[in-house]
């Protein structure tokens, strides 16, 4: 008879016993709750009772009390070493919420001000005959939406194959220069957008090849879009298990066929994410378009014929005109851009979520 040796030295305790550090005493829990509620309550009470400046209240009353309270809880839980622990928690949460407040301020001001300007007519009409102080009942961003779609669409058509092929080089080949390319792509992602615009201006417009036109704008967006597309699709290709590739190769497929029929379909949703994030990266780019496509008031469907409006240049033009109505138009255009970005972003999220579910 076979002898079974039990190699587990000690049976691990079941349930709550197995993780003693996860048990938090009632006393500790109560202290934490008190420390996070009481300082805020005191500060708010003083704020409403005396009506002092909100920022002064925040920094002169709330923060000191909160810091002391957190340090006390730290001492209660960890002994004297706990003071810094309490401080860390307070500082972390303070900074994190500060930035969240700023973000919501941005979103709220765009939604609040933008929704006053937006209407069907604002989205569909163009800007012809519109003066800075024309009432919002006339004109809109229709021509700019069409222009943005044309310009960004063209650069997408050019950039996506380039970015995808770059990702292929980074994941599927044994090239020796992979590290350099990756570093360069990372560095390109920090390329100042105005430099990209100047580049296209110097190459095509200053040299007299063309005047302001839509296609120069598309070209100016390529260096900005390429790093995003390449890096995100590189991540997507990297997630495809090596075994799939090896299987296809072992069955006798040439590398390109293995890639096209096995790797690429497996990474499809990641590719969609890469494209969408790339578009979201450039759809709000202003400086390169100001330098290359200029602005136009009329709808222009021809990428090769004359100046072309786009949402960012429309917004750029209306910000500094100084009339109430022009400012309203700027907020409206900002809201349209944010809605476009949000749509792209949500779709990208959904696409990448289906990928992870499939993998499970």
């Amino acid at each position, binding site marked *: 008879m076979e002898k079974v040796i039990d190699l587990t030295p000690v049976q691990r305790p079941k349930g709550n016993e197995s993780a003693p550090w996860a048990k938090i005493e009632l006393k500790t829990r109560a202290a934490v709750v008190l420390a996070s509620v009481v300082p805020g309550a005191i500060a708010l009470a003083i704020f409403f009772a005396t009506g002092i400046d909100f920022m002064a209240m925040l920094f002169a009353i709330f923060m000191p009390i909160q810091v002391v309270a957190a340090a006390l809880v730290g001492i209660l839980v960890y002994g004297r070493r706990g003071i810094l622990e309490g401080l*860390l928690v307070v500082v972390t949460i303070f*900074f994190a919420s500060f930035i969240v407040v700023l973000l919501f301020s941005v979103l709220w001001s765009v939604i609040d001000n933008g929704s006053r300007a937006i209407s069907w007519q604002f989205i569909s009409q163009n800007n012809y005959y519109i003066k800075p102080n024309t009432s919002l009942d006339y004109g809109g961003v229709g021509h700019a939406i069409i222009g943005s779609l044309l310009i960004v669409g063209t650069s997408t058509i050019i950039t996506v194959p380039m970015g*995808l092929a770059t990702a292929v080089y980074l994941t599927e080949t044994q090239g020796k220069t992979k590290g350099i390319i990756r570093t360069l792509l990372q560095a*390109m*992602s920090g390329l100042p957008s105005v430099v990209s615009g100047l580049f296209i201006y110097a190459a095509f417009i200053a040299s007299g090849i063309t005047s302001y036109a839509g296609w120069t704008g598309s070209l100016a967006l390529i*260096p900005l879009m390429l790093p995003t597309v390449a890096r995100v699709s590189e991540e997507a290709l990297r997630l495809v298990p090596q075994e799939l590739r090896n299987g296809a190769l072992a069955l006798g497929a040439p590398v390109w066929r293995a890639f096209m029929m096995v790797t690429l379909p497996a990474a499809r949703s990641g590719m969609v994410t890469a494209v969408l994030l790339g578009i979201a990266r450039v759809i709000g780019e202003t400086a390169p378009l100001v330098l290359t496509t200029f602005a136009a008031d009329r709808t222009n469907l021809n990428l090769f014929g004359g100046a072309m409006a786009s949402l960012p240049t429309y917004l750029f033009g209306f910000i500094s005109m100084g009339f109430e109505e022009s400012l309203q138009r700027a907020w409206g255009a900002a809201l349209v851009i944010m809605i476009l970005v949000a749509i792209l972003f949500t779709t990208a999220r959904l696409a990448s979520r289906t990928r992870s579910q499939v993998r499970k």
Partner: protein
Amino acid sequence: MTLNVDRPVPERRKLAAKPFSKADRVFFGVARAAAFSAIVIVSLILVFLVSRSASTFAEQGIIDFIFGSTWDASLSPIKMQLWPMLWGSILISLIGTALAVPMAISIAYFIEFMAPKRVAKVATLIVDLMAAIPSIVLGLWGAFVFTDVAAGWSKQLNALFGWIPIFENNSDNFLRSPFIAGLVVTVMIVPIIASITREIFSQMDRDIINASLALGGNRESTLRKVILPTAGGGVVGGVLLGLGRALGETVAILYVLNLVFDTNWYQILESKGGSIASMIISKFGEAGPEEVGGLMAAGVVLFVFTLIINALASYIVAKAQPWRK
């Protein structure tokens, strides 16, 4: 077993590391061409900008162009010197980075080590969303919503700490200062630094963190003695990437900064400052051909400067993740 003499052990097959079919060669060729297009684009940018600005560099002198501080298109001969803008860009980026680093590290730490899973997911979404806000929208927000608030903060800073030279303000005008521009830049670059830091944090070896906790360390000592030293390189790289982005920021700064060709060395609350990128876009509209050459030259300086910082940053990030090959 007997050895089959008719069929001896076959000759060892040659292992091919190179593609041997024509289609594969095309496939790899296309991939390589695309990868090298990144190099080509960067060099083309440099070539075109330098060729357009060579005359400016020649006329103004490279040293004078970069370190002088007069820009006047009405003079004859025209005088173009960049230093106030270059220093302004650096100053604003330094303010922005100094404010963004603690916030970004806090957020990354909160997401990775403090928050429950569901909260962490939402927080990650928020960070990604922030990264997706176009800079012109931030500029609009900065100019019409945030400036007044930030001017109030500046006033209080000046009232409390006015005796420190950097918080001096002699003009009683707190609008359009480098400090406000720095705050707007902070909103811009926090998501960049935070997402890189979070990635580095999430790839850390959990065992050493657990070991530190098991030895009686608390959160603070674990962060200070284990997490930051281990993840330090990657965090520095992320910070440099944020710095590069801040240097090149254009339209978000344009509306919240008073561009003046008079070097503002350190008085961050004064209503004067500079930024190369914003200066280019604001002067471009009414620039004559000669001044456009000067703007191109400014673009070259900005490009070379950011490229060096970004390349350094991505090198550091790559070094900090040796498991990524």
